[in-house]
């Protein structure tokens, strides 16, 4: 009966004045929208995978490239740091003109005289304030013997504080003392390398080695030196880190004399070099570069030829730092571009997804979704895609440097900032490149959207 149907008492119904809008639980809402996003990502598996791939590569590239360039710059800087940031290194270098003139003479070859002198060092020490110590060394190439074994090595005649000046550690034993220095004692400290060759089994401490016709007592073993790329003035040790042994400066002078002989391509050559190397220690790191400039002036005044070289590790360190920064900017830019490409990929996919899901958007709008709900839905989807890509990228980005280190032995350093940075950028990219497609989705006319096939 019509009457019965229309009777209002048939069904008491809720009729609030305003649509009831339960503020609801934002978290629940967010969770639901996220679930919807995950579902639709799943339902387009391959497409989602390809999208994520762009971000994965971008993020992994950022982290890996930063790790490699960080490692390379650390390595470079470490070399200079090893030389001591407070040090200035002076080396004798055979000048080009002397080289030319010595080959012209007749008769027995004359000894060539060049290089740094004790007088140079004394002048530097006395005129420049703020120099705490000067360690002068003579370096003579010799064959050293123990029983049947021999090795050609640099014999460094140096001062007692040589190891501390360059931050070298003794593995065992000790360096020579002031007394031994004064006594021109025949004592020697071997580098690892030399010790390994001459004493493959025995502990060399307390045993002796033979240089020319003299025996030297081994009192210590030192770790091998890092190399300095400047002033490899001894023949035959042009590139590789020289293996070295150390004897008192005084012993070197009295046993080997002022003039030494060395083997060259053209035969034997005699030269007189008072000092091969001097390490000048400066009190204050701030003044190292300035002191270096003054030394340069002093030496320029005292030497006719440029038969010396100055090496300031700190200056080289600064240069290395600068070029490291440049490298990192370049690496960052390249990686950034790949992230950008990943982002554009996401935008592309999201736009396709929005078009494909026009009907769904229409349905959701008809069933009460606000524009902002639609935006949130697509944005969350974009952020999930880029976030997942970001996480995989971070894992790969941390793994790749490890592999590089393991396979090629390069130093790589993953700073905690890099993964954090790369991940935040990837999430940001999700938002930035997701916004436009999401807005497109939300701005669709519901009627049009519902009609869409």
């Amino acid at each position: 009966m019509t009457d019965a149907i229309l009777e209002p008492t048939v069904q008491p119904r809720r009729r609030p004045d305003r649509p009831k809008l339960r503020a609801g639980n934002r978290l629940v809402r967010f969770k639901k929208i996220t679930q919807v996003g995950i579902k639709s990502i799943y339902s387009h598996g391959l497409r989602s995978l390809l999208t994520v791939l762009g971000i994965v590569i971008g993020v992994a590239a950022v982290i890996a490239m930063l790790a490699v360039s960080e490692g390379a710059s650390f390595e470079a800087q470490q070399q200079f740091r090893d030389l001591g940031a407070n040090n200035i290194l002076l080396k004798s270098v055979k000048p080009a003109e002397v080289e030319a003139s010595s080959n012209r003479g007749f008769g027995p070859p004359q000894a060539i005289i060049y290089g740094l002198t004790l007088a140079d060092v004394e002048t530097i020490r006395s005129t420049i304030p703020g120099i705490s110590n000067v360690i002068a060394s003579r370096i003579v190439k010799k064959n050293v013997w123990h029983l049947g074994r021999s090795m050609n090595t640099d014999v460094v005649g140096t001062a007692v504080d040589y190891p501390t000046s360059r931050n070298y550690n003794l593995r065992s034993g000790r360096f020579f003392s002031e007394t031994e220095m004064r006594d021109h004692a025949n004592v020697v400290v071997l580098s690892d390398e030399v010790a390994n060759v001459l004493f493959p089994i025995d502990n060399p401490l307390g045993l002796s080695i033979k240089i020319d016709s003299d025996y030297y007592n081994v009192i210590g073993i030192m770790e091998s030196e890092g190399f300095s790329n400047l002033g490899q003035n001894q023949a035959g040790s042009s590139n590789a880190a020289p293996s070295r042994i150390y004897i008192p400066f005084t012993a070197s002078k009295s046993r080997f004399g002022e003039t030494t002989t060395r083997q060259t391509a053209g035969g034997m050559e005699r030269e007189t070099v008072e000092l091969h190397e001097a390490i000048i220690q400066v009190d204050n790191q701030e003044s190292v570069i300035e002191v270096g400039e003054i030394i340069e002036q002093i030496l320029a005044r005292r030497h006719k030829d440029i038969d010396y070289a100055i090496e300031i590790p700190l200056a080289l360190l600064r240069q290395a730092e600068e070029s490291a920064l440049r490298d990192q900017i370049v690496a960052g830019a390249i990686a950034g571009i790949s992230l950008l490409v990943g982002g554009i990929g996401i935008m592309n996919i999201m736009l396709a997804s929005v078009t494909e899901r026009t009907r769904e958007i229409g349905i959701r709008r008809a069933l009460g979704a606000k524009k902002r709900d639609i935006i949130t839905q697509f944005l969350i989807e974009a952020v999930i895609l880029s976030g997942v890509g970001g996480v995989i990228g971070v894992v790969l980005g941390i793994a790749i440097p490890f592999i590089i280190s393991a396979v090629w032995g390069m130093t790589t350093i993953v700073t905690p900032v890099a993964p954090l940075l790369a991940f935040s950028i990837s999430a940001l990219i999700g938002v930035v490149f997701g916004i436009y497609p999401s807005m497109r989705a939300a701005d669709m006319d519901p009627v049009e959207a519902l009609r869409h096939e």
Partner: protein
Amino acid sequence: MTSLEPNPATGIGNPPADIDSVAQSVVASLKDIRKTYYMGALAVEVLHGISLDFYQGEYVSIMGPSGCGKSTLMNILGCLDKPTEGTYYLGGEDTSEMDDDELSTIRGARLGFIFQSYNLIQQLNVLENIEMPLFYQGYSEQDSHEIAMGLVERVGLEDRIDHKPFELSGGQQQRVAIARALAVDPLIILADEPTGNLDTKSGAEILDLFDELNQQGKTLIMITHSDELAERSPRWVRMLDGKVESDDRRNS
């Protein structure tokens, strides 16, 4: 069975004769609705001033030839589209004053839609489809679940809750859509040719369900092509060329 005289001049459907006994209220009121589509320089008026009142608990069919503007009218009733002119009151509120967010809310909370092509979301299962309007109204998960479970039973699909739409027959899909439309307990259920894609048997089942819902007090407005179907309902509005041609009630 007597039919009330419609008033084509005003287009206002007269309330039932025994208005005092029902004392029912108007849930939706259209006043001189016009809709013009602009296609470039060309303006086409599709609705030429439609005035209709719909009462609580009514079951109204709207019929008319293809292209006469039924769907256009339905979109306006559904707050999916705005009239170019005229006013539309839904549940006592003037919808012309509302912004997009308010219209979205009113669609979600006050209206239930049933489409010819079901319009279920393919990635979601039956239960999730039914829960969707509740989600946008901020119902808790537990409440939504309870309501949706109740409705699934009501439309007889309790053994299909995990199924995706494409695993269901057309009739079953339409029943899911009906359950979804009922979820928020709307003021009006709007159905645009709900049986258009169904065979006679499934169509009849849907219409039986409509009768049942109406008997339980739901307000239904249904578009249909068929006079036969229209006359199943107690009131039927006939449209022609964007106007109301007749508005009849069965009185028995």
